[in-house]
């Protein structure tokens, strides 16, 4: 009985997430272009939050360097287009974005094999450093445009923001469905076992190393694609994409919503984006101070996020959202 109920709970969350996402999607698609960019940022954060949730939420590994995959995705798209353009053959740009995501995922496999051997504090430090290491390296490679960024303006047609927004929407639906799938499959159970106690999980026969690296690569895949679309938007990959603050935004989003849940990143990213925008507009110079205070307050007082609060209300009706 309990099993059925929890299955039902997941189904509810998935339907809710998809419906919610569809509403955001429609708003963005049919709004005026200037509003679309607002929704663009929201959906992008949503993808990043969901992808971070796959590694950090499900397996409990605090990945502070998630933004690195976003930046790398942008650089892969820029590199692919720069390489392909002289050949006179450029496939559909969405295919390039997928390829870039794949390349980032491969790179994440390599990084993950090394970095995921570390736990807790060491893992957090290591991922924090990755951002720095990769950014400085890129800034020193001539072919990648050093500090100026890798331009490919004119090599692909300029896109209307609505087309790029629809790319993002497809990725967003994909990441929500993937998250739901992972949660129901062996991988999801394995990851949550790792989160609860990695040593026990290993003794119980969970192939922890493999599961962690898989989760890491999957999360990198989606973050990379989001970065790739951003590169198409500016026709450039900038070193500024590796902004540490982005990593924190993603964290804030999943904590605000509810870490390790299916619905959490969606709620968190949406609410966070609205708060951030309101703060930015009203307090252009001080918004980051407020942002910092909000982050602290969230962690101290609402560690389970908005979903935790909702569940407390729903508990009387015997329902649980995940």
């Amino acid at each position, binding site marked *: 009985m309990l099993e059925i109920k929890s299955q039902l709970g997941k189904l509810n969350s998935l339907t809710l997430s998809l419906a919610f996402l569809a509403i955001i999607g429609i708003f963005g698609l049919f709004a005026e272009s200037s509003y679309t960019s607002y929704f663009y940022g929201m959906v992008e954060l949503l993808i990043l939050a969901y992808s971070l949730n796959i590694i*950090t939420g499900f397996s*409990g590994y*605090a990945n*502070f360097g998630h933004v690195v995959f976003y930046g790398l995705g942008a650089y892969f798209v820029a590199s692919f287009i720069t390489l392909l353009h002289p050949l006179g053959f450029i496939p559909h740009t969405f295919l390039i974005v997928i390829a870039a995501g794949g390349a980032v995922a491969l790179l994440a496999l390599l990084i993950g094999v*090394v*970095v995921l*051997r*570390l736990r*807790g*504090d*060491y893992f*957090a*430090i*290591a991922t*924090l*450093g*990755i951002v*720095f*290491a*990769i950014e*400085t*390296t890129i*800034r*020193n490679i001539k072919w990648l445009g050093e500090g100026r960024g890798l331009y490919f303006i004119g090599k692909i047609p300029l896109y209307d923001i609505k087309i790029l927004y629809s790319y993002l929407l497809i990725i967003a639906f994909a990441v929500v469905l993937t998250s739901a799938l992972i949660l129901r499959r062996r991988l999801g159970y394995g990851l949550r076992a790792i989160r609860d106690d990695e040593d026990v999980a290993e003794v119980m026969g969970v192939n922890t190393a493999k599961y962690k690296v898989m989760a890491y690569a999957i999360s990198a895949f989606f973050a990379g694609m989001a970065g790739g679309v951003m590169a198409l938007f500016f026709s450039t990959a900038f070193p500024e994409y590796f902004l*540490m*603050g982005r990593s*924190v935004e993603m*964290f*804030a989003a999943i*904590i605000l919503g509810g870490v390790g849940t299916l619905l959490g990143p969606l709620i968190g990213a949406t609410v966070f984006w609205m708060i951030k925008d309101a703060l930015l507009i009203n307090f252009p*110079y*001080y918004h*980051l*101070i407020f*942002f*910092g*205070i*909000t*982050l*602290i307050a969230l*962690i*101290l007082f609402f*560690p389970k996020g908005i979903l935790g609060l909702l569940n407390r209300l729903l508990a009387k009706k015997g329902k649980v959202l995940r």
Partner: protein
Amino acid sequence: MSLELFAQTIINGLFIGFLFGLMGLGLTVIFGIMKVLNIATGAMIVLGAFTSYWMLMLFGINPLIGIVIAGAFGFIIGVVIYQLVVRRVVRAPMLSSLLALFGVMMVLENIMMNLWGTNPRSIPVFYPSINIGLVAISGTRVVVSLLSIAVTLLLLVLLKYTYLGRIIRATVQDWKAATLMGVDVNKVYTIGFALGAAITLVAGALTAFVYPFEPFAGFRFTLYAFVIVVMGTLGNPVGCLFAGLIIGLVYSFTGIYWIPSMVPAVVYFVLILTFLLMPQGIMGRRK
């Protein structure tokens, strides 16, 4: 590759290494006592630099005394941050304390930016350099290094020979047992965090002697401090000093023989090597 340049690079690295060691020291004290990783280290370093700078600019206070003031200010800031934020996440999962302190970092950095702008500043101090045979040693760096060593020694004496030090060590060994013996763990943590913050701000005041600084200059130092702390065995002050010297050498060799801006990447590479080859650090015992 001339011998002079090589010797000079070593000297430069060593005499900046002591300062790096001090940057790690504040972090390692806090981690050693309460297992909390102070990611706001870089912001605190810059705050220390600013404290000393404004003491000089507004009141004409000698930067050497400014260091002491920075330390005192750091202690106060540390008490405030501990009581407001860290106290509630000390026993929470590591992710919580890291993110909460990330929030602290953002608040500190952006307050500094709003108050003082983003122009790089520096403290105009100059001590004549000393020539020994092939190499010249910058006098400023000698002063900074001596003071860094002095602070480290002071801390060691405090931990080893005072009553407070004994309480701190007892808490580190087993906080539950310490509580049962009548130790007010919360108070020990407050003092520990404040002590770490004070050392970090002192390191910042000394950094201002050598490097220009602006509100967002700190994050690079956080990375270096992390590497030093891990390399020197988490929670070990002496290891911290030695690891600082190693990172100082890495820093100066990368700067002279390769590209200065590649330093963070190389330091990171060293970090990963440390993690993989000797996760216990240079002072750790192999198990």
